């Protein structure tokens, strides 16, 4: 009983923490996530048409027809089939599924991350910001080809711009995800995937990897800053003159497995415009960055696994 008492004491504290504001998926920051939320409400709502009555029936029937009430209620032990009920039992789910499937197909057409028709409608004249993303073990590398800038574990984009993301990975599959902002898309070695999104207003978000990729996976997060176009230009300016980065430097210092505790950002000047393509080609040619058992086991230890970032 003492344990239950402890739980009772802790309960208000824990409840207070479970506020709805933590559930970030309910607070989208751009049209893509807003559409996802819209469909969530729509589909869940339609499901409720059948779930709520069924749930009530599953609670009400056992009470109503409990054996202790046998003198009050009808008992039909041989009633085992009814065309009406069977037609309804198949028909109602069928109708609901038809509507839901139609909605789902339309939803996925609208937000196809490769080239979402949704953004063409919602933000037709938005300027395009291209970012190439490389997931390494275990950091996020963001390449701004137009700005000749490379950042690690920080994605800064102009608010209101349409961000076209190309994704790949050095060695393992990772999920690229910014809740409230962008659909989840996998970053895969030797492959190239795409994601597209608009962040409507300036703000700060967190992105992270969603597909397990090894010992440093839990630390694979990056800060996302949506800033005004003027601030974006200023931000680009402020990192002019950072250390140069070409494929050789990337291969030697960034790609080998390492954990960036605390996701400390670092910045480079892109000197090799083909870097993204070279990473894909290297993976296709069989390039791997072997993770030894020793590194796997030691990864929790700050000293054993060198912190990456600026060299």
């Amino acid at each position, binding site marked *: 009983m003492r344990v239950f008492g402890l739980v009772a004491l802790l309960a208000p504290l*824990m409840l207070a923490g479970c506020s709805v504001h*933590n559930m970030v998926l309910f607070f989208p920051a751009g049209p893509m996530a807003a559409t996802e939320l819209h469909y969530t409400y729509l589909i869940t709502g339609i499901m409720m048409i059948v779930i709520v009555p069924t749930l009530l029936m*599953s609670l009400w029937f056992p009470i109503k027809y409990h054996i202790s009430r046998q003198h009050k209620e009808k008992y039909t032990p041989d009633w085992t089939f009814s065309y009406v009920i069977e037609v309804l039992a198949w028909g109602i789910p069928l109708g609901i599924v038809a509507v839901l499937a139609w909605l789902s197909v339309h939803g996925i057409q609208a937000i196809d991350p490769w080239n979402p028709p949704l953004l063409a409608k919602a933000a037709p004249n938005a300027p395009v910001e291209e970012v190439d993303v490389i997931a390494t073990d275990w950091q996020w590398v963001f390449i701004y080809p137009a700005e000749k800038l490379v950042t690690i574990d920080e994605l800064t984009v102009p608010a209101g711009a349409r961000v076209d993301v190309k994704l790949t990975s050095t060695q393992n599959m990772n*999920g690229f995800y910014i809740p409230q902002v962008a659909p989840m898309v996998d970053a895969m070695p030797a492959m190239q995937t795409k994601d597209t999104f608009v962040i409507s207003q300036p703000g700060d978000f967190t992105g992270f990897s969603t597909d397990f990729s090894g010992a440093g996976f839990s630390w694979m997060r990056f800060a996302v800053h949506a800033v005004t176009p003027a601030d974006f230009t200023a931000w680009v300016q402020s990192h002019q003159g950072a250390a140069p980065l070409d494929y050789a430097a990337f291969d030697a210092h960034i790609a080998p497995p390492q954990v960036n505790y605390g996701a400390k950002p670092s910045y480079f000047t892109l000197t090799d415009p083909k870097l993204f393509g070279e990473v894909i080609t290297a993976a296709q040619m069989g390039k791997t960055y072997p993770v030894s*058992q020793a590194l796997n086991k030691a990864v929790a230890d700050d000293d054993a696994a060198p912190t990456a970032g600026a060299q």
Partner: protein
Amino acid sequence: MQVAVEGPWSPLLGRLTLDAIPYNNPIIVPTFIVAALAGLVAVGAVLYYKKLGYIWREWLCSVDHKKIGVMYIILGLVMLFRGYVDGLMMRTQQAIAIGPDSPGFLGAKHGYLPPFHFDQIYSAHGTIMLIFAATPLLTGLGNIIVPLQIGARDMAFPYLNATSLWLTFAGAALVMISLFVGEFSSATWVGLMPYSEMASNPGVGVDYWMWAIQISSIGTTFNSINIIATIVKMRAPGMTWFKLPVFSWVQLTTAIIGLTAFPILTVALTLLGLDRYLGTHFFTAGMGGNFMLYINLFWIWGHPEVYFLVLPAFGVLSEVVPAFSRKALFGYPTMVAASFSIAGIGWMVWAHHFFTMGMGPDQIGFFSAATMIVGIPTGVKAFNWLFTMYRGRISYETPMLWAMISIVLLLIGGLTGMMLSASVIDYSVHDSVFVVAHFHCMVLVIGAAAFAAVIFWWPKVFGFKLNETLGKWFFWTFIAGSVLVFVPMFMAGLAGETRRLDYVFNTALAPYMLWEEAGVLVYLASVGFFVLMLIVSLWQRVPAGESPWGTERGLEWLTRTPVPFYNFAVTPHVNALDETSWRREAGAALRPTRYVPIHLPHGSGLPFILGMDVFAWGFALTWRIDWLIILTTIAMIAIVFIRSFDRNEGFIIPAEEVEAYEANINTASIFAEQPKRGHGLVGEAH
């Protein structure tokens, strides 16, 4: 052309060195000591009471479907406990390791488990719960109940049945030994690719995982063959297809999935093995390999596997709900149709597991819609159970409690499943703990139905009921734990928490983690009540009589209770769908008046020996001990060859002996030692 491996290799022991034994790990060593002590006590007790011969003859050599089923269920319950402990450790880690300021113990930066150890634990949790807990539990139930429900003496292939069991045991033993020798896979239960390749996973963990599920899934394929052949060929006279009880129908659909989906897993794992052992490039990222192919092959099996598990649970509900509603099952023909629809559609939807991998909207739309269609027959089943209760006379014995909560969980799991199948929603919660909470809802349906079935049919096998009071304590604590764990988990999923985190960077998630930790501790109480229920019931052993629940309906209750080793004294002629309740109502005879000789197969030690050999083979492959691989492979072929020369066709129990057994049924209970029988009673043919 073997792949070179990291670390030392010797011809005698392969990769196995003293370092492989984690003698300095503060968690594994106490576990080992406890396990070793428990093992020593068990072995000591067997030797002290001189039961070694009994266990060998009556259990390890048994080909009796009921004993095999009981051993399956014991394996399932033991592994369920192991899987639960893994879950407890995971939850505790996540409850501690929140935010950069969270403390670290035992050498971990945050929490008490370094990532590598944590990753193994959740990989083991998933593998064990699905492959070595749920599957044996349900396979065991099918083994016990199906032959009884169709009026058969045994399965169609009793020796193959024993072989399936011991292959499953061999797989489970590989998982268990990985705890103390070497390591388990850190690549999750699905074997992430290309992460499971040598470059990222040079250790033996993936090998352990791969061979464990490879071996046990071959056992499952064999079992599926057996179930289909039994139901198609061994039904009692008079049992037409539409007198086949729903549980048996469902076992048939399940076995069809087992027969057709598991071979694809065999292919996926074999190709992965070729990559890891011979250095081919099936699933590597480079050299023309394609890891998306592995994901595709794995889920061709993986999604039907979900229905492989949940369909038997639906079958259990279709037996338990009518029994405790004192009313025949509503909508029997549509129940059968729904089972086949679920199995069939479930075979076409696997790609929804990789919506985020980059498929085009046409394909995603197709798989999304197809996935939703599974909701239709599932909904039909729920309605039919509800209308079975409607105008019934319901009582709340523990099996019924489990069945009712199963329906509620199914509705919640179905709602969230429909949400996830809408790819536009999946794009925001794929790989989040929302998905984890959803499929745990579904496996709780399976778990609850399995508990309902074990409690419901327990007296059929053992002759006494489980303690109802403790059973209800077990039920309520289990449900309280489930609510505490999984409601916050759904919320954390909507808060954007991703799966498989050994360090939770978002401090806002702390309250959810604490709730889940509280829930998993409440589960501990339910484990305690479960064990207590078993101990008290075994201690009391109140004879349950011929009709333990008073409301039994199916043919399986027409044998004596507990069921004797020969099942039916005389094969029944089936007249109605619910034969036993029909005979009671119509006043037809429940017992035969004269007896005939019964023909039964002999036991054999070869399936057990084969299982042990396959275990050694898996161990040798894992550690790359070449000579042992060759030796055990030759032994496997030799065992099959030797078995083909065993032309003993079983023995005959004379009619008088059957009559004597039937008169004094306690002597025939499942623990009784059978009298020694000479060979060749039937003799060689011609």
